[in-house]
């Protein structure tokens, strides 16, 4: 299925969880925030929140700023 990840279309496995997606992307869950369709997903729910086709997923972290 296709999701919109950080502004780009991406193919992922059907029903993939947020936690699994982070693993696939080799991202450390402790350093990111995840938003699915405008809702912030709490870290403790990464393992249970399954993505659906067409979901808009944003993965954010700390970057340079003043």
């Amino acid at each position, binding site marked *: 299925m296709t999701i919109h*990840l*950080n*502004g780009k279309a991406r193919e992922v496995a059907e029903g993939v969880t947020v936690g699994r997606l982070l693993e696939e*992307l*080799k*991202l450390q869950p*402790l*350093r*990111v*925030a*995840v*938003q699915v369709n405008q809702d*912030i997903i*709490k*870290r403790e729910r990464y393992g249970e929140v399954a993505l659906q086709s067409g979901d808009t997923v*944003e*993965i*954010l*972290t*700390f*970057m*340079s*700023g*003043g």
Partner: protein
Amino acid sequence: MRGGDTLIIAGKEFRSRLFVGTGKYPDFVTMEKALAVSGTEMVTVAVRRVNLDRTQESLLDFIDLKKYSLLPNTAGCYTADDAVKYSRLAREVGMSNWVKLEVIGDQRTLFPDNEELLKATKILVKDGFVVMPYTNDDPIMAKKLEDAGAAAVMPLGAPIGSGLGIRNPHNIAIILQGAKVPIIVDAGVGTASDAAIAMEMGADGVLVNTAIAGAKDPVKMAEAMRKAVEAGRLAYEAGRIPKKSYASASTTMEGMIE
């Protein structure tokens, strides 16, 4: 809380009164060195999309979290709703419930939208954040933000990145006179003397980014800023002499020969 030898914001004690931004350095290694030399204990960061391209280096690999606390900003937010959302995302990243709250009103000046800023401050304070709003050099606004529960207020010296220095020292002085929470002068500092001037006036701290990151030698400028902030603070504590129009001899006339 204000006064005393150290800066305390929301119960956290700072030995350094210099806050440093992490934007615009030529590279992360230079930034890492500049932060170390600056003596800062708190650095600002932004919340942005993660690099999915793993070949790029990550900012957090260059910030020792045992040495520095993170102060996420809401740069780029133009409404209270956006700023609240970014603050919550920053908190979710999980290293801080502090926020340097920016709600920008205009792209060209990057001046704050104070109406939205106050609104966002109220929401975030209620939500348990340590809120440090970036505001104009407006004493009334500073007071309103303090009353809304801001942990510190961050009036600008001049527009962000302008390097124009403290454009309205009289307003900053009025803000300082009335403040019960720490006042951190943020934005506008161009060189060491600007930071010193803010500190001599009694500012509780200064936040510097572009003046360090954009200097020809950022590491040297970081050292200059550390010394300027320390010198300015010492001068404030020492109490400067009043200004007079005429001379007053430093050397006595007594003992001169007839």
